[in-house]
């Protein structure tokens, strides 16, 4: 029984990571990230006030302790963050490269024009 539930939890985690990568530019993708952040914050507050609640939840999904469950959630959140950050930086790099290329080509064209005259 536990193994089946664990399988689902892992599948959900992978699904979350995949959607986070795929929909990073869409409105829905960005919105879901914000919702995720709020949910995480609320979960944390609730977990602090009612420590037993996380334990119960952890047992329900086949994880040993509530603290473990929170740790797993944090790991998933971190992976999503890291990959997102990496991709975002790649996007920005592309913008900078395009700009640099424009400058390089403009400069070269100008120089050749000067040579001709």
């Amino acid at each position, binding site marked *: 029984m536990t193994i089946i539930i664990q399988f689902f939890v892992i599948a959900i985690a992978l699904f979350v990571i995949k959607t986070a*990568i795929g929909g990073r530019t869409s409105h829905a993708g960005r919105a879901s990230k914000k919702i995720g952040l709020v949910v995480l914050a609320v979960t944390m507050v609730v977990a602090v006030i009612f420590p037993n609640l996380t334990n119960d939840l952890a047992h329900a999904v086949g994880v040993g302790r509530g603290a473990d469950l929170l740790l797993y959630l944090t790991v998933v959140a971190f992976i999503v963050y890291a990959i997102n950050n990496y991709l975002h930086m790649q996007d920005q790099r592309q913008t900078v490269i395009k700009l640099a290329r424009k400058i390089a080509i403009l400069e070269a064209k100008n120089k050749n024009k000067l040579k001709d005259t």
Partner: protein
Amino acid sequence: MNRDTAVIIPVYNEGRVIKGVLKSVLKDFAFVICVDDGSSDNSASEVQSTSALFVRHPFNIGQGAALQTGIEFAKENADIKYFVTFDADGQHRIKDVHTMLSKLRTGKYDIVLGSRFLGVTSNVKRSKRAVLKLAIKFSNLMSGLDLSDAHNGLRAFNRHVADTVNITMPDYAHASEILETIAEKKYRYTEVPVAIEYSKYSLSKGQNTINAINIGFDVVLRRLTK
């Protein structure tokens, strides 16, 4: 003298050899485009002392980006029908470029790739050879092409390819990206055996074998995020 072909040479800190390489290429080709990728040595002045066209990145970006810049610059000249990418360190032979161009001129292919493993290669280190073989397997798996060499800097292609290719991987992963584009855009491709003259100099400039991991990571991630 060849006037319908642009030879694109990305240059990054090749001041010691670039002039000699350019001189020999300029003997056969009128349009040689040197893309200086923000060199910090005397590459720029060495290139400018020849009749090669000079395009300079404001800072170092990477070989892939330099190639794309060269292609975009060459495209603006309407006389150019064919495009050749050529390494700056003198490891390619002009003779091979002519063979590739004659293949291209038959009109049967959009892109002709140089292959080290169809021809005779002098002094490839065994460890490098093993990594390259593995890279080819991985590359063929990812791109769905059937090639004998994955990362050869010598390529010749027509305007259709120049108009449709878009190299976005700034570093060495661009080679895999080009292969993926060949598969995706269904270019007609073929390989030609080329000899690589690995000199002490070109070996010292070549990419580190461990970099294969970086390239592999980027290739997989790009596939996932498409």
